[in-house]
């Protein structure tokens, strides 16, 4: 695998760096079909707080994530050059994903970590600036990039490549694709209710499955939250033992040391729950990933339904137009009745 990528990309990567300082690409780099992750190391290394003015000129604090990339062949040759890196905000990841969804409507696009902390149990702050939350988000964003960059189709996308390599001007590049216009019309269409006449069996099954998966993972996440809440309470009450054992030890002679020590252990026990539950958040994150994956799958099924519906409408329309043309050409009104025209009768009579 290392040899493959070496042959494919050594020259072109070096070339593109030399020839095109603004980052626009020679398409041969990406056209070879092997996925990006095989040719490039990607990681989301760090997170930092920044302050700046937002779109409506208000001061805001936000977090940026360091995306590092390095061609794999570089390390294979024994050199270890420092990785290229740039900073990205969560909203830029969102933009990338929204673009991919529109550009590849038939693909289940990997999900991002949640925008706001949901399924929280009471202790966990729902604050996006909380360091534990930021750390878990960093992992989630990295996971997203891994999945996208190892996808046989998505990994070859130019916009993705520029997301990873072109710090400035990337946003403009995305908007220039004109995907936003498509996004809006798609959104309106998807929320409309319509029925397909001959549903695609496999896709109906997939949609049904995605509904089930969504339901189960959501239930699980809610139940887990409640369990975490209760478990926290059990551990914390044990902390009260710490205090009373300590007070009791003061009036004892032989038993004093033992009781004092027991008190300390109870305190340690009570505080141990914080780390335990923080670790469990990582498990919850993975459940959430599949909750969102289920949503993505459902969206693909819906888009297919929509396309099929549009196709069916278009074919009926075509049939009707053909008939009309025939009527005009021959001057004869056909008495063939097809069901669609029958249904249109009440409208025609108005």
């Amino acid at each position, binding site marked *: 695998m290392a040899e493959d990528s070496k042959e494919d990309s050594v020259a072109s990567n070096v070339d593109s760096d030399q020839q095109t300082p603004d980052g626009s690409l020679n398409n041969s780099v990406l056209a070879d079909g092997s996925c990006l992750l095989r040719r490039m190391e990607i990681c989301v290394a760090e997170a930092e707080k920044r302050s700046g003015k937002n779109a409506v000129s208000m001061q805001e604090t936000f977090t940026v994530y360091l995306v590092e990339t390095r061609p794999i062949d570089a390390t294979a040759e024994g050199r270890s050059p420092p990785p290229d890196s740039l900073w990205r905000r969560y909203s830029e990841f969102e933009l990338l994903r929204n673009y991919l969804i529109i550009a590849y409507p038939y693909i289940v696009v990997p999900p991002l970590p949640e925008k706001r902390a949901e399924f929280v149990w009471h202790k966990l702050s729902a604050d996006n600036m909380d360091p534990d939350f930021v750390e878990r988000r960093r992992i989630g964003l990295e996971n997203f990039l891994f999945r996208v960059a190892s996808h046989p189709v998505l990994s070859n996308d130019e916009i993705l490549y520029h997301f990873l390599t072109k710090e400035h001007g990337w946003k403009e590049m995305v908007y220039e694709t004109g995907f936003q216009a498509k996004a809006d019309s798609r959104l309106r269409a998807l929320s409309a209710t319509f029925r397909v006449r001959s549903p695609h069996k496999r896709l109906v099954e997939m949609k049904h499955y995605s509904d089930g998966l969504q339901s189960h993972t959501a239930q699980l996440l809610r139940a887990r939250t409640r369990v975490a809440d*209760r478990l926290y*309470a059990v551990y914390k*009450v044990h902390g009260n033992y710490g205090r009373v054992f300590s007070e009791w030890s003061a009036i004892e002679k032989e038993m004093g040391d033992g009781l004092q020590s027991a008190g300390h252990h109870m305190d340690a026990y009570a505080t141990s729950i914080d780390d335990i539950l923080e670790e469990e958040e990582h498990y919850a994150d993975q459940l959430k990933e599949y909750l969102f994956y289920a949503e993505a799958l459902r969206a693909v099924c819906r888009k297919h339904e929509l396309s099929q519906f549009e196709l069916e409408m278009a074919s009926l329309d075509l049939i009707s137009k053909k008939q009309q043309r025939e009527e005009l050409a021959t001057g004869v009104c056909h008495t063939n009745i097809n069901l669609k025209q029958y249904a249109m009768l009440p409208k025609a009579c108005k």
Partner: protein
Amino acid sequence: MSVGAPRGLASSGQKLITEMLHPLSAAEEPPSPGPDVTVSAEEKEKTSRIEFDLPDYSVRRRYQDFDWLRIKLEDSQPTHLIPPLPEKFVMKGVVDRFSEEFVETRMKALDKFLKRVADHPVLSFNPHLNAFLTAKDLNKRQGLALLTKVGESVKHVAGGYKLRARPAEFCAMGEYLDTFSQKLGTIDRIAQRILREQSEYLTELREYGAVYSSWAGSEEQLQRPLEGVAGCVTTSCGALEDLSDNMSQDFLPVLREYVLYIESMKNVLRKRDQVQAEYEGRLEAAVLRKQEDRTPIPVEVEKCQDKVECFNADLKADWERWQRNKRQDFKQLLTGMADKNINYYEKCQAAWESLITLLQEKQTEDKTSETELN
């Protein structure tokens, strides 16, 4: 009043050993509960002491009878600390007096009571104890059965005397008992709170496990792993239930019994105060009269002094014994609590480890089937 009872006998000869059998297991006829009393307990004792005619005795006793014994002991040995009995009255409707748990708990407490009495160098020789352990029918007067509060003696020392100066060591004992009782109360409340929280946790945990089961129903490849997780959660639930049961059956009753024990001890301290006060009062009156008309100090006053000194000595000896037993009992109690908790975590750990094995097996299964397909 056996103030001058010999204390040396304790070291000679074998001690009395009593054993309590479960009341429901050894019954020949079903126990007939009276209006204010619970199931009877059957006792078998092995004795090797000289005062007892036979080596083995087996008698049936009701709670009433234990109550009678305790009152008799208190009356006949007022200078000694008599171990407490479990609570006599339980609120009807709150606790089921015939439930297995309640009977078990009560039986353990009654057993402990007898063992403590049998271990005591003075109390174990009490003739009432002998009668309790050996007589087929306890011939107790009905009037005594109507006494309500455990620990209150019928006889009061002639009242009205005020204590001048309590010796420091008895003051210290009193203070210790007050603080200790307070701390035990706090521990009891904390333990109850933990039980409540554990119960709520258990409810949520069960529902959590159920979601895994229900999800497993709609998966193919994932079915076994998900069922495995559900099974683990169920095992954890069972282990937690055991832990909670143990806490309410073994831990809490001992705490409560010690609170009663402390009350008994405080009563003895009060009685000692009264005896000392009586002596001081009589002495003062006698001294005044002697000053007035040369009447010599009556013999009663000297007897009172003896009483005080004996009481103090008995009390100090009992105090030391009580402290030793207390250390042992609490060491056992707290170690037991720790062991039960460890046991709970070990059970949970074993369940999850077996799940990991299951998942790893599944992983290798999947890998081999994948390579077979390719």
